[in-house]
């Protein structure tokens, strides 16, 4: 199976169980390499459906303070792009089968070499790429490489996206589409915007791809609410913050969030 197919299968499986897919984000190398592996393997064992594999960058301009701090720590501890792929390989060797979507800014990928990165990522066990500062207009090099390797090119849409923009972006997307819940950077919010369901519907009219919602979600009730309106729930900052305290704290929160997603079973 290609990465695209594995991602589609994970959403299909969740759909069969009449629930949304749960997709945790983790900042690779944070708080340490060993804890990264424990957190991801633990969340997978507890039922996470897919993962966002956060590749650190010195200048994460779409991220709020939590992810900024975690990725900065990872970099100062020497986490490189190659290390992230090695960790992915180790997780695969340890039996983690959930699809992995690499989430990383463009410059480290560009410097690594776009084609080389895609090939190495696919070989290590990555299934799709999310590059938050790379709109489809600039993905002329990345898209063909991903197509060749069977990796999904996962694009983001935002509440500010116009109808024309949505139409344009969905044509380039494979795997699923990442809907940014709020106008802003990553980070937990106490409330999600009231028109989130409308936004999901607006995109739904233009595509059959699974729609996962992320940014701002941190608590069980929020996960449940989002699971009720979308095909996937992405949680980043809240889990990263808990992971900074301990592996157990991250796994405890993960189980809460999974319960939230299951509560919305419809």
């Amino acid at each position, binding site marked *: 199976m290609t990465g695209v197919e594995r991602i589609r299968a994970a959403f299909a499986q969740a759909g069969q169980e009449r629930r949304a897919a749960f997709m945790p984000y983790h900042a690779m190398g944070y708080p340490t390499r060993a804890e990264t592996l424990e957190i991801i393997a633990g969340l997978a064992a507890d039922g996470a459906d897919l993962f966002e594999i956060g590749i650190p*960058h*010195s*200048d*994460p*301009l*779409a991220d*709020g303070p939590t992810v*900024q701090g975690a990725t*900065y720590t990872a*970099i100062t501890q020497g986490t*490189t*792009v190659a290390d992230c792929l090695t960790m992915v390989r180790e997780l695969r060797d340890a039996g983690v089968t959930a699809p992995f979507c690499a989430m990383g800014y*463009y*410059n*480290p*990928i*560009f*410097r*690594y070499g776009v084609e080389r990165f895609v090939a190495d990522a696919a070989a290590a066990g990555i299934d799709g790429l999310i590059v*938050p*500062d*790379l*709109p489809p*207009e*600039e993905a002329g090099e990345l898209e063909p490489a991903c197509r060749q390797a069977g990796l999904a090119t996962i*694009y*983001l*849409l*935002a*509440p*500010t*996206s*116009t109808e024309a*923009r949505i139409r344009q*972006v969905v044509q380039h997307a494979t795997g699923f589409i990442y809907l*940014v819940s709020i*106008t*802003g*950077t990553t980070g937990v919010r106490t409330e999600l915007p009231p028109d989130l369901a409308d936004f999901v519907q607006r995109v739904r009219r233009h595509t059959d791809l699974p729609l996962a919602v992320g940014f701002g979600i941190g608590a069980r009730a929020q996960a449940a609410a989002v699971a009720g309106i979308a095909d996937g729930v992405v949680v980043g900052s809240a889990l990263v913050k808990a992971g900074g305290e301990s592996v157990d704290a991250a796994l405890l929160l993960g189980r809460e969030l999974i319960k939230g997603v299951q509560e919305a079973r419809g």
Partner: protein
Amino acid sequence: MAAVQREPINYNAWPDEDGHFGPYGGKFVPETLMPALDELEEAYLAARNDREFMAELAYLQRTYVGRPTPVTYAARLTEYLGGAQIYLKREDLAHTGAHKINNALGQALLMKRKMGKTRIVAETGAGQHGVATATSAALLGIECVVYMGTVDMARQEPNVFRMRLLGTEVRGVESGSKTLKDAINEAIRDWVTNVNTTHYLLGSALGPHPYPAMVRDFQSIIGQEALVQMGESDDGPGRLPDAIVACVGGGSNAIGIFHPFLAYEDVRLIGVEAGGRGIEGGEHAARFADPEMGRLGVLQGTKSFVLQDSDGQIALTHSISAGLDYASVGPEHAWLRDQGRTEYTYCTDEQAMAGFRLLCDLEGIIPALESAHAVGHLIDLAPQMAKDQIILVNLSGRGDKDLGTVMGDWGAV
């Protein structure tokens, strides 16, 4: 080197419609901002073709900024260096003391007249762009927030106070190297969050399209004036210069004076980057001079030369001048360099300080430390040129803001 025959390039045709200068430029931003960039481009193109808008901007440039800024013949500096005749384009005499006001006022007026937004965010390094933005916001009655690295707030303290006096909120940035790059990250994060009400007033010829082209166009008034002043006015030499020298941080003062001269292929266009403590140790901001660290890359919305490590993480830079202390450079400069139309060199902190002292001693002008890099290069360049040749230096700003740094450095001067 043999002269290469080539078709004349129409420099005005760039960037292309997607905002690329050849392999450089583009729009590398989060999806949330893509509609705002389209809106900005539309508003800007409409304003450029709107006589009323352009007349209002020209009026403010005359009656508020004090344009045209003069060209000054630097007689004693010329005599001291013993080579080419040196002229200074006096952007230090523009209101607020630097060229930054040309762009800040242009964008603030654009927002006010053509966009349905009410709030401005900006970044600043040296504080000159922050002061120019705060000034324009006060003039036009717009709410304004400026992000500034805390290292820069300490070394450009007078400008922090000036911004606050002008009614702007200055927010210190503690991340990364606490300098210009980090201030831009924070300004972009604010913009992503408040994009429905807020315009990002970027201060150099950087960032995603349409900023590099728009900032260039607002700054091109420097070169347009200089073309007339050098070629035709009684105050100038009555002909175009043989070389133009400008410092290059993001590249806005340089592209502003270069652009109107691009078609005059006999005029050498020389950009001066910050060499900091020298290229070898890596403590500098000379993107074009360091083949190891200065590589093609993407930073803050645009593809250009970026100082970075082998893993694609952005390098920490150093310059004595906050305004040049940045890891990337405007994409049009990278492209013009590839065309062989512009050339780039660098001045170390020490050479810039030497230029600073010379201009104080010989011309009675205290330059900004950024501009002092352009002057510092004259020490090498002018003596190599004949006495009937002419150099025009873009004196991008005045040095009041730098007195703290210079006093601290006095022993070394």
